């Protein structure tokens, strides 16, 4: 598994408890939107960010968090924060 694939797998396991649409989760792509597609309660986005911080041992600032609305953006933020670690 490449680094990117491993990161996506980790992200999927983090968001799984919060999703309300199993079907969209099953065919998740980089374009999948957390709220519109996965029907995640917007309040839970902060919990996802905290889980991501714990998993990757990074800190995600509020501005970066605001961007994390879909899979692609989330992966980009994680990569960016890992790079400056």
């Amino acid at each position, binding site marked *: 598994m490449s680094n990117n694939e491993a990161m996506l797998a980790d992200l999927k396991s983090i968001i799984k*408890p*919060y999703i309300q649409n199993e079907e969209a989760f099953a065919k998740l792509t980089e374009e999948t939107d957390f709220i519109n597609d996965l029907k995640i309660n917007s*309040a*839970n986005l*902060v*919990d996802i960010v*905290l889980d991501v*911080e714990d998993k990757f041992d990074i800190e995600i600032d*509020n501005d970066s968090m605001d961007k994390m609305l879909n899979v692609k953006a989330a992966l980009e933020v994680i990569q960016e924060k890992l790079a400056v670690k």
Partner: protein
Amino acid sequence: MKKRVVITGMGVVAPNGVGLDAFTAALKSGTSGIEFYPHLKELGFSCCIGGIPKISEEKKREYFTELQLRNFNSASILYGCIAGVDAWKDAGLDINEETDFDSGTIFGAGTSGVERLREAIYGVDDKKVRRLGSTVVAQTMASGVSAYLGGMLGLGNQVTTNSSACTTGTEAVLMGYDRIQLGKAKRMLVGSSSEDGPYIWGGFDAMRVLTRHHNEKPESGSRPMSATATGFVPGSGAGALVLESLDSALARNATIYAEIIGGSVNAGGQRNGGTMTAPNSTAVRRCIQDAVADAGIEPTEIDTINGHLTATIKDPTEIQNWATALDLKGDDFPYINALKSTTGHCLSASGSIESVASVLQIKEDFIFPSINSEDLHPEIEALIGKERIPHKLIKQTVNIVAKASFGFGDVNGCIIFKKFKNE
């Protein structure tokens, strides 16, 4: 013309029984739910006994989703949702797919999520506010329990939480009763819940109002009306009742447990002997008399009273107030029992749990035993005699029960429940 209001469903989470069946069995047998808690002793509490309902992890998952249980730490919401959802289902009502604008909830609480709040306070003080997560507000807001219930059941009428110390549960019932009487709702899920443990009970222990003489023998610790009562035993849990307009209940052929025929809430204003913690007896008597008048009954029609009776020095005063308010003495006085003898004082949940117990007596025609009062307080014996306090289960027709609760802040509530007759 006011609507008639009946009870069509109930649920209960009590220290001596979770669920109606277990609770009814404990009620009839006089089984205590009071236990010794070593962690209270370790923390230096004088009173190390109390009543905490037993809820398994498995049981939690029958009511809450895995997502709801992530970082969940709010006893009032836990107990209240179990009792509330049970009552709703017991009433034969479905979980609404769409918002039900005819149904609401008034579900009281003394506090919400004190343990969760403690975690949050430590987090904030540790400069980790950004890591608190999303659920601190929902679990610690006073209305947490009604907010969770509203979502679980799809309630679209009034959804709120009342709070009036140990009168909370009784007040919630009467607030729901008012709302249905006025035609503003068809169904109101009413009840209350109370949390437990050192952070809730510590303040009472500090006031020295809890008994410290029964740590070795917990079951004998809660002694309402006893000559050897030395303070109350703290408890927790939740009680819930589905109140419904008679029209609605009949239209869907619901089981009717009992009817509410009257009630009263008032306060003593912390005057004439009333204080933050002690009752103004004039107000207590007035509350009882107003409830009886509201119900349109004679005091002699009351079969049994479920008192507030906590096992403090105020029990003889309460009996005196009932006797004076009803103008009944000795053998003319109704039976009177104290649920707190087996559950401890469930604080903000007491009024609703005791309302459930009161209604069960009407539905199943029995008067439950009040334990630990065989050595009756002499002042109580002088007023009403020994025979009026059942120490064993009495099986007899029960038509009318008067239930009262009194709370810090000098607040009072009294409900009159009656066996339902379609006339």
